[in-house]
């Protein structure tokens, strides 16, 4: 009898709870916009997070709510954006396909090592030890943490630098987030040139630890006819909206660190002869600097940006002479 009573009681409790849940599910039902699953179907479904949302369905939700544009997906491209626009009943904006680019070219042969690193083969771990084994504070550590995360295996580590293979890259930007040095940038897929350096140090300092470092000499800004190149914090950066694909900057760069994508510039990439010329240019500048370097100490503390363009190259070049002397006892 006791058992029967207990059973009845629990059946009663369960029934009440079940009814309560059933009613609650009606009261608290959330209406889902039918367009969200439709857009989710159209999206590539890679859940890469390249749009800045947590996966494709989150992106679809953001598009429907108006928080994201119909062209929000960098992976799906124009066709995907058009399909989404059709669902939303709007016009598409244009999608620029992007690709990742590691802004460093200081490999084992041309960038100085600070110490011999022995530890986990991971950039973030190496970063904790004095910013990594390379002397350059903004150089690629080269343990390929980005390569591990790349969903399309588009990154390999070659000669101590991570290299993005543009044909495989679909511009999701996961590597950009993963890099502890933050030296991977997204640039337009059609970008003809890029600056292979991220050093924010002054030219004189950069020169001491890397042969492939931008010294902020501003030769490229002068040669660029469309004004697409600016030098800030001793590093050249290219505005791809203004770039005319002439390729003159790459030809002129005395450090040969403006790289040309094959066949994307009207001017051919610098031949060995041109590189030699560039070397001569550096020599010439150096000679120039030696003559003008009367007061390098005063100019040392002046940021490169504030110095007029004409004299800035001379000043930048003048300082290494000074630092070399400073190394002596």
């Amino acid at each position, binding site marked *: 009898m006791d058992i029967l009573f207990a059973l009845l009681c*629990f059946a009663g409790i369960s029934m009440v709870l079940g009814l309560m849940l059933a009613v609650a599910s009606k009261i608290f039902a*959330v209406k889902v916009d039918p367009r969200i699953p439709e857009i989710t179907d159209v999206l590539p479904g890679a859940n890469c997070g390249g749009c800045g949302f947590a996966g494709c369905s989150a992106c679809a939700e953001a598009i429907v709510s108006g928080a994201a544009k119909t062209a929000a997906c960098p992976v799906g491209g124009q066709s995907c954006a058009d399909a989404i626009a059709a669902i939303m009943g709007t016009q598409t904006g244009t999608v620029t396909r992007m690709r990742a680019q590691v802004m460093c070219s200081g490999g084992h042969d041309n960038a100085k090592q600070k110490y011999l690193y022995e530890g986990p083969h991971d950039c973030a771990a190496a970063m904790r030890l004095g910013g990594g084994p390379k002397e350059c504070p903004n150089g690629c550590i080269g343990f390929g943490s980005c390569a591990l995360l790349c969903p399309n295996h588009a990154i390999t580590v070659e000669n101590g630098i991570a290299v993005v293979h543009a044909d495989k890259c679909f511009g999701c930007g996961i590597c950009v987030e993963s890099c502890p040095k933050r030296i991977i940038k997204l640039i337009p897929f059609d970008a003809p040139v890029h600056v292979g350096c991220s050093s924010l140090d002054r030219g004189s300092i950069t020169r001491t630890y890397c042969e492939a470092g931008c010294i902020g000499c501003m030769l490229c800004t002068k040669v660029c006819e469309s004004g697409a190149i600016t030098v800030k914090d001793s590093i050249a950066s290219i505005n791809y909206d203004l770039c005319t694909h002439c390729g003159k900057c790459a030809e002129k760069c005395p450090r040969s660190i403006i790289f040309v994508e094959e066949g994307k510039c009207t001017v051919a990439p610098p031949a060995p002869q041109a590189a030699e010329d560039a070397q001569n240019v550096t020599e010439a500048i150096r000679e120039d600097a030696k003559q003008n370097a009367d007061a390098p100490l005063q100019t040392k503390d002046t940021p490169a940006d504030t110095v007029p363009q004409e004299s800035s190259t001379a000043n930048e070049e003048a300082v290494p002479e000074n630092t070399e002397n400073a190394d002596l006892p």
Partner: protein
Amino acid sequence: MEQLINILLLMLSSVLVQNFIFSKFYGICPFLGVSDKPATAAGMGMAVTFVITLSSAATWAVYYGLLVPLELTFLKTIAFILIIAALVQLIEMFLKRYLPSLYQALGIYLPLITTNCAVLGAALINIQNGYSFLYSVAVGFAAAIGFTMAILIFAGVRARLQFADAPKSFQGMPLVLISAGLIAMAFSGFSGINFF
């Protein structure tokens, strides 16, 4: 006033001395499963806090309102499982409808801990010790805070363990269990403190 002090002391003892994970070994499953990253550990801690606090209140009401008058107290374990499961479902629906941001934050953890032993344990301990309603809710909340603290501490430890150069046989779960034991030993130092 004296009651307030009592409650505060009881809460402090629930957090440190009677810590759910390090001294009672409740809720080890989510403790080991979701402590990979501090962010997910915090989410789990929040969900546990939320559910334990509410279920402490609900189970107390059901026990003294229903089971005691019907003389069915020997079935409290089953009754509590039932109540907690239904309650979590209800809360989930409610949050999804009215507090979507909180629902997003608690995310998948809410249904995960529906039948977690820490939640059930908190409810049963309250009844065992004969706490009043206020005490039950306060102790439940404090126990959950203790759980959150433990899982957060451990997530921090595990983040550093990833860089540890451990022998192969220790890599992964063995090292995790050993470090959990070491932290539990540290927490056993609190057991000397007696508030009552």
